[in-house]
């Protein structure tokens, strides 16, 4: 009688190289009410949101609003206060991006001055990207 056939190796790649764990971006949870996108805003606030929508991330063709970086906006007596976060603490474009957002807010009709406040909580994650933003990123070649 012949020997029973050898069991096939259940994992032919066992012992081989492993995928780098860091190409796997964890999704995370969307925080309540975030990101702020200006949906339903009226008057001067709506005008500021339109301006903010025009500000693009310096590295990718996506609006900072659709990327989910903007956490809040208030306008009082001609002064706009934008609350925003960044995807990474070591972001080299921090000053640049913050200033772009500030200028955009200050340029809206009905606004005279603007300030930008950076916050780090809740932490940004890809769930903060809007559906429009995801479409923009996919078109750019980023898998989200």
């Amino acid at each position, binding site marked *: 009688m012949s020997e029973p056939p050898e069991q096939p190796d259940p994992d032919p790649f066992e012992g081989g190289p492993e995928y780098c764990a*860091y190409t796997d971006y964890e999704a995370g949870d969307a925080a309540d009410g975030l990101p702020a996108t200006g949906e339903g805003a009226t008057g001067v606030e709506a005008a500021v949101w339109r*301006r903010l929508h*025009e500000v693009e991330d310096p590295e990718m063709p996506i609006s900072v609003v659709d990327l989910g970086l903007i956490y809040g906006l208030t306008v009082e007596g001609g002064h706009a206060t934008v609350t925003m976060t960044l995807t*990474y*603490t*070591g*972001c080299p474009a*921090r*000053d*640049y991006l913050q*200033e*772009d957002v*500030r*200028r*955009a807010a*200050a*340029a809206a009709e009905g606004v005279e001055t603007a300030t930008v406040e*950076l*916050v*780090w*909580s*809740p*932490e940004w994650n890809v769930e903060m990207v809007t559906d429009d933003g995801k479409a923009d990123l996919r078109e750019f070649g980023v898998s989200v």
Partner: protein
Amino acid sequence: MVATEELSDRERAAVEAELRTLADDEFVVAERYTEWQVRGPTLEADIAIANIAQDELGHARLWYDLLEAFGYDQVDLIWERDPDDFRHATLVELPFEDGDWADCVVRGYLYDTHEHLRLQALEDSAYVPIADRVGKVRGEEHYHREHAQNWLERLAESREGRERVQGAVDRLFPHALTLFERTDHEEAIVDTGVRPEPIADLRAEWRDIVSGFLAGLGVEVPVESAEELLPEARGRNGIHTEVWRSLYDEFTFTYRQLGRSEAPSLMPAPEEADVDV
């Protein structure tokens, strides 16, 4: 704890002291890590260490930002600060042994294990601006420890590698203990809840973790008491090793050479900016 502008003098001193040690450690360790850029043993190691340095600079900035809420600016905090005012641990200022990658890896492991415990304790900080930043920072720290541990395991596989790790542990361990030295404000830091866990408790936890892990690799870790091991220069008390002055001169060199009196900005100040986008 109350809002920043309503802190009592004691609370404010406690918050400031905790922030300065956090920020200075991160800034100086990043400064040293950059020396390995383009000199690491593999291209991937180069990229990883450069990335870790960038993370640590990002975290330093987050902590320095909070100090700015007390009225300091970047010039006060870095470029024109008296070098004797820095409060980083001496572990992060020491130069690397020439060409010794094990020194970099061991240092990263000892430092990041400490940072992990320290940040964990700060998650419950009564000073909300600190607690609010811890999550973001911790999320970016995880792979630092994994990177160091992977390299330690790899180095410990060969005799030469293990001897280099042992040499680095022998040299660096006493200086790593300075990460847990009390500042003059330790008592206030704990009882105001800025960091509810005393630094001495974190040290005990840290010693258990690093001693266990390194022993598992066949590396001996000193067992003497901290008091017996600690070097004279402990950083947290404003006393640094003799190399600190030259490192400080190096990172402030360009600022002085260009005759600056303020931190350069990428964009004009708001009052000078044309608001028409």
